[in-house]
């Protein structure tokens, strides 16, 4: 195959590659650099790359470059560098190797070039196989409508023992002091007691127990002391005014009272006054 024939074949390849990759056309007919060109030439030797004749390949390359430069004046520098290197390699291969040569021998250089070509060819094969694999969203597909995981936030409550104890202590202390400071005692005034007694006593002429009279008013246990105390004081006042009579047959026994009929300042008045201290003492003791 002459270089001229060689060059005739190339445009086809060039066009094919060019269409694939317009941006990367290199000066020489769409080859991607001298190595690419060399690989194509080597393939045309139609032998295993391992058995390639580097000498023949160098010849072909140099002939190709020469032919190409007849058509195009300019060639990319790396093609010319490769051409120069191949010419040098060719001369080394043809001349008997001198014994005192420094660096790699011509055979080593040739073998290195062959290896580079093999490696390029291998990676091209690998690239072809890679892109021939089924590709995602081209050949195989994932689920078109995935169902997103719902994020459920679950509160995890935290508190430290210190939080707990300080909260407890602070609020117990606050409440304890608050009770001392604000003695929210409800008091039955004497006037209230007297009004109630007058109403109660007015309805009956018979002896009645004072505490029974008061039951209706003692709705809360906390009020009991003040109701009793005020009522008793009111009773004594009403006795002094001669409105009611009271009677107690023993210390701590129930106190009876009734509306006084007739004599304004009755005989039991002093008696009642004598009982006053004892009874009052009892009530205060309860309060």
């Amino acid at each position, binding site marked *: 195959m002459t270089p001229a024939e060689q060059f005739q074949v190339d445009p086809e390849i060039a066009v094919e590659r060019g269409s694939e990759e317009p941006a990367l056309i290199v000066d020489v007919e769409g080859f991607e650099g001298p190595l690419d060109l060399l690989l194509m030439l080597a393939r045309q030797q139609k032998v295993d790359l391992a058995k390639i004749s580097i000498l023949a390949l160098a010849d072909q390359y140099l002939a190709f470059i020469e032919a190409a430069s007849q058509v195009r004046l300019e060639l990319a520098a790396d093609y010319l560098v490769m051409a120069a290197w191949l010419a040098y390699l060719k001369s080394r291969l043809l001349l008997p190797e001198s014994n005192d040569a420094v660096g790699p021998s011509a055979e080593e250089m040739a073998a290195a070039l062959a290896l580079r070509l093999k490696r390029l060819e291998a990676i091209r094969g690998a690239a072809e196989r890679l892109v021939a694999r089924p590709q995602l969203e081209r050949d195989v597909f994932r689920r*078109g409508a995935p169902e997103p995981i719902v994020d459920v936030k679950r*509160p995890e409550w935290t*508190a430290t023992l210190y939080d*707990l104890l300080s909260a407890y202590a602070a609020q117990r*202390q606050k409440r304890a*002091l608050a009770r001392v400071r604000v003695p929210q005692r409800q008091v039955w005034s004497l006037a209230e007691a007297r009004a109630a007694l007058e109403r109660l006593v007015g309805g009956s002429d018979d002896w009645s127990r004072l505490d029974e009279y008061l039951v209706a008013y003692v709705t809360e246990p906390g009020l009991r002391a003040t109701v009793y105390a005020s009522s008793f004081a009111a009773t004594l006042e009403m006795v002094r005014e001669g409105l009611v009579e009271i009677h107690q047959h023993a210390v701590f026994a129930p106190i009876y009272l009734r509306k006084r009929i007739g004599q304004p300042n009755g005989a039991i008045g002093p008696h009642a006054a004598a009982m006053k201290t004892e009874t009052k003492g009892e009530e205060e003791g309860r309060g």
Partner: protein
Amino acid sequence: MRSLAKQHEVIAHPRAMGGDYDRDAVPEIRPEELRLLEALLFASAEPLDEKTLAARMPDWADVRAALDRLQREYASRGVNLVRIAGKWTFRTAVDLAWLLARDSVEPRKLSRAATETLAIIAYHQPVTRAEIEEIRGVSASRGTLDVLLETGWIRPRGRRKAPGRPITFGTTDAFLSHFGLDSIGDLPGLDELKGTGLLDGQLPAGFAVPVPSDDLNLREDEDPLEPGDLDLGLGPRVSEG
């Protein structure tokens, strides 16, 4: 009834049961249109109607019949073929929604009111809501007890033998565990609280801190809870955020 009969049949022929993994080794001969439908429905970002499916499927395929069969095939699976607004799509089985929810834990600090209430329950247990309110001097908001029940740190213990039979509350093992207490008796008493400065000296005479007890046995003045007591909104609720 039918499903009962079916189940019985399956039990009578245990070899037919799914538990036998080797069963899958039997090469399944499924009509090709099922594969096509599966792929189309799986890959589509939207539910597809029969017309669209038919247009994509080969002419010979009976799309309607294949959809029916596919729906039956997937009915028992983790993914079902469902029809939504007349269009077909694969959806994960409704009963597996829990699987697709990620529980993320969001630490939240207990509010001041809840902390106080918890402390009162811890020290004064068994204690009723009215008693808590009396100790705190504030009426307890429903939310506070709810939050505490949600933490799992308190539990309704029983009902107080008193008018209204109010529910009594106490702490749980989870409470001890969270606060690193070996037993409820490890809660500091009056002297210790004073010692740490949490309580100062200005306390009225007679001020006491109870010795807490979370004994599982009910007290004399407690009745056991009745069935249904735990459903009265007292159980843990799903958080509302």
